[in-house]
């Protein structure tokens, strides 16, 4: 009764349908910020939308939040980059199947003056150790995102716990990649970023790439259809079609053709 009343009120206001083009089918994709901020999704989605007639609505948040939103049932498809967390998501029954989609790499950027002296290195663990030893500012995402998880993994592999220095040289921004780059740029701090966000970022200031090419900086993206058995409202058919397109030849080709400053930044590797 209560719900019916609210529904009637909403309909009476004519808001639920008239303000958005809800007539055409759509899916909600919870995605990582890097795929949106770099412009990748904006570049590839028109192809899928033209071919399928399905409107893709992207909510770009950190990987951790994207996964939690999907668990709450507020997504049809998940596009993130934290493989262990994704596999856990599927193992817990929230996702149907995890598929590799594409990869790029993380890079360590920092001030041109490079007070920790790490420029040109290709060993992320050695670089982080040097930063910790020099106690120079490092901006961490601190938001449970895929990049944050990767960063924490490298610290622990180097046998370090930077959170001891939280608030001192280790600065946790609790924000997205772009916001964290803004912070790093503002305080001449080092930070770990994915290459796509870095290349498309417009406020580099005094920052430049200092460490790259370590195989440990590999950054794999995965795509998962949210399990309709857990959430009956999931638009499974449309969502499945999107996953198949992304991992199929057309989607993979579209991803490969995306360029930032003339560089390919996402490398499709769906099986």
């Amino acid at each position: 009764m209560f719900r019916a009343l609210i529904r009637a009120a909403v309909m009476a206001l004519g808001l639920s349908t008239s303000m958005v083009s809800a007539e055409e089918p759509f899916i909600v994709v919870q995605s990582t910020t890097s795929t949106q901020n770099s412009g990748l999704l904006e570049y590839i989605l028109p192809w899928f939308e033209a071919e399928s007639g399905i409107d893709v609505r992207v909510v770009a948040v950190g990987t951790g939040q994207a996964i939690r939103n999907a668990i709450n049932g507020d997504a049809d498809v998940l596009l993130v980059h934290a493989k262990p967390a994704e596999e856990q998501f599927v193992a817990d029954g929230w996702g149907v199947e995890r598929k590799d989609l594409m990869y790029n790499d993380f890079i360590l950027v920092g001030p041109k003056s490079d007070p920790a002296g790490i420029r040109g290195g290709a060993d992320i663990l050695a670089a982080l150790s040097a930063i910790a030893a020099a106690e120079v500012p490092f901006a961490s995402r601190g938001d449970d995102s895929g990049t944050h998880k990767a960063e924490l993994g490298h610290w622990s592999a180097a046998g370090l716990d930077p959170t001891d220095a939280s608030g001192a040289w280790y600065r946790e921004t609790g924000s997205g990649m772009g916001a964290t780059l803004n912070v790093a740029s503002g305080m001449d701090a080092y930070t770990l970023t994915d290459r796509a966000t870095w290349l498309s970022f417009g406020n580099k200031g005094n920052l430049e790439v200092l460490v790259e090419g370590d195989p440990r900086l590999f950054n794999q993206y995965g795509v998962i259809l949210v399990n309709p058995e857990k959430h009956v409202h999931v638009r499974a058919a449309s969502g499945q079609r999107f996953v198949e397109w992304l991992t199929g030849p057309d989607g993979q080709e579209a991803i490969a053709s995306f360029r930032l400053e003339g560089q390919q930044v996402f490398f499709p590797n769906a099986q």
Partner: protein
Amino acid sequence: MQGFASEFSAAVALIFEGDSELWAIVLLSLKVSVFAVLISALIGMPVGAALAVARFPGRRMLIVLMNALMGFPPVVVGLLVYLMLSRSGPLGVLELLYTPTAMIIAQVVLVTPIVAALTRQVVEMLAEEYSEQLRSLGVSRLASVPVLLWDARLALVTALLAGFGRAIAEVGAVIIVGGNINHVTRVMTTTIALETSKGNLALALALGAILIGIAIAVNAMVSAVSLRAEQEGLRHA
């Protein structure tokens, strides 16, 4: 800074070339906030006026609470509305999350206390002023509410503008419940947040300038309307 200035003027030029996507975003911002303020007025004005004239135990406390709610952090409101509208929440079946309606709901929660609290203040003063007249006409306290609201209408416009200011400038709540989805729920403030996070600071600032321009335009319009209403009121009197 030289680079920034030229970037900024380039961004402003871009905006005034009449980019249709940008204007769709501006229009959506206005739609959402105007709707939110209208609904807040429908709820907040009667509540505020009733609180001004009615006498009951706990009234003082309610007023304090209402005044405190004016400072409710938008992010908390966004979170609460998200928890209500999420598929796992009690109102999930309505499928309102990530729609403009969800943004309107969040803004109504933010704006209603402002409208109600300011209405109470205005009406309470008027009620004191008119108390003898109303009593001599035998009008009960609650029955006098519509009359008092009508009489206070010019002052109440200010309350609505204060509410509109909070609604149109707000980002924390609408980005959570709207999701900042391109062409669906992207408004001025969430676009500014997005462009800032992309490091496009000049563009973000230029968009901010538009937002301020809108706020000035709306205020000027309302001020002109109420001035005319005031003059007409004087002529009739």
